[in-house]
């Protein structure tokens, strides 16, 4: 448990987060590049969707990270509210813009894919709508954080908001599904044999893992910036500034 307590120390975290972020960034970028290249160039053409399906190599990892990001924020929110861990507060504040970006990317790539496949940029389908609302939930957290001046209060308010939001995400999802559905069912996560050829699936899994590592890297990098800003008056942060 000792290493965990040491992680609670902010200067210590600031020091070790740099190599950790680099250790996430290098394999993340390589895997994502391999996955996207494999998907865009090597994977066989889909018999129904032609080449247009290839955008899923960006779309699916982004959509996955939009959910993963919000869930991780909510978990950090619980930790921040219950144990008042400063790092958890900083994590959820730092992860919000990264998660929002992936959500936006998922929506945009979905729209680009939807044009040739469904004949329209946007349909009020259940999954699209709940993804859009997820984007609003992210933006709410970011806006609340910007509105409250005291960083501590802002982070705790964001923690509560993301916990309330995550309880609502499944309710929103199922209510919207009840309301309207056009998006194709899950392909990768269904039980049994995936409904996808391994040639197509393999790059997708690599891209998903790579994007996830990149999410960790970007969030960690953002955390370092947030941390420095919050602690800008402390002695260790001033030393970081004077050294740089």
């Amino acid at each position, binding site marked *: 448990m000792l290493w965990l307590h040491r992680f609670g120390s902010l200067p210590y975290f600031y020091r070790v987060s740099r190599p950790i972020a680099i250790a996430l960034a290098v394999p993340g970028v390589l895997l994502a590049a391999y996955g996207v290249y494999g998907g865009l160039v090597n994977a066989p053409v889909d018999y129904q969707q032609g080449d247009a399906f290839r955008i899923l190599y960006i779309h699916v990892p982004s959509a996955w990270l939009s959910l993963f990001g919000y869930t991780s924020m909510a978990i950090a929110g619980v930790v921040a509210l219950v144990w008042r861990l400063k790092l958890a507060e900083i994590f959820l504040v730092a992860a919000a813009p990264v998660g929002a970006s992936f959500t936006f990317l998922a929506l945009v790539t979905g729209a680009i894919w939807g044009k040739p496949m469904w004949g329209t940029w946007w349909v009020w389908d259940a999954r699209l709508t709940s993804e859009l609302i997820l984007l609003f939930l992210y933006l709410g957290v970011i806006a609340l954080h910007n509105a*409250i001046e005291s960083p501590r209060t802002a982070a705790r308010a964001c923690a*509560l908001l993301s916990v309330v939001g995550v309880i609502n995400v499944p309710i929103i999802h199922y209510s919207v599904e009840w309301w309207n559905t056009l998006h194709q069912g899950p392909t990768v996560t269904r039980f049994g044999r995936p409904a996808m050829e391994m040639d197509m699936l393999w790059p997708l899994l690599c891209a998903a893992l790579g994007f996830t590592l990149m999410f960790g890297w970007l969030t960690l990098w953002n955390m370092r910036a947030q941390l420095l800003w919050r602690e800008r008056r402390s002695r260790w942060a001033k030393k970081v500034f004077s050294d740089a």
Partner: protein
Amino acid sequence: MLSVFWAVLRRDLLLAFRQRGVLVHHLLFFVLVVALFPLGTGADAAILVTVSPALIWMAVLLAALLSLQRLFKPDYEDGTLEQYVLSPEPLALIALAKVLAYWLASGLIFVLASPLLVLLLGVPASAVPVIMASLLLGTPTLGLVGAIGTALTLSLPRAGLLLSLLIFPLYVPILIFGAGAMRAAIAGLPAAGALYLLGALLVLGITTAPFAIAAALKISLE
């Protein structure tokens, strides 16, 4: 423990009753949004009936957004809220009493006014009971969920637009099931399913939201 619930409820209702003008403003806002809408779409009865579920519920949502901003503000400004937080009584219970008083003072008016407004839009009278039931089950949940957002933005001077960004996404299920029940009733279909789900959301809200409101109030007063 229950005595503090009744005391807060009684106090807030008394305060609301002493400021009857504000209650009338909420009602007038609701009526105006609904009454001006046909001027934008044209007086085609078929269109008005089709859009009436969305219109009624959007009007309720906007009215809730406007009225919720005042939910904790007076208590925050005169220091009563701090005493609530400091008191040994459970803050969640006090929050629940405040939301209930808020709903009795402003939400219930929408429920009572809705028959007149939907008939104005040309909705068949047979759909009115379901519409009232959907508002009766949905509007308290709007208050409970909205109170979390209000509590979080309490210390901000101008929280209106931010509040809409915080709570409208959370209102999506209520909007879907509320307007869904209304649509089904207008089409002559059974609306029980949507009403049950609205009821379930209300139960979930009553049991969980007060704790979130209490936590949010404590954060805002830190």
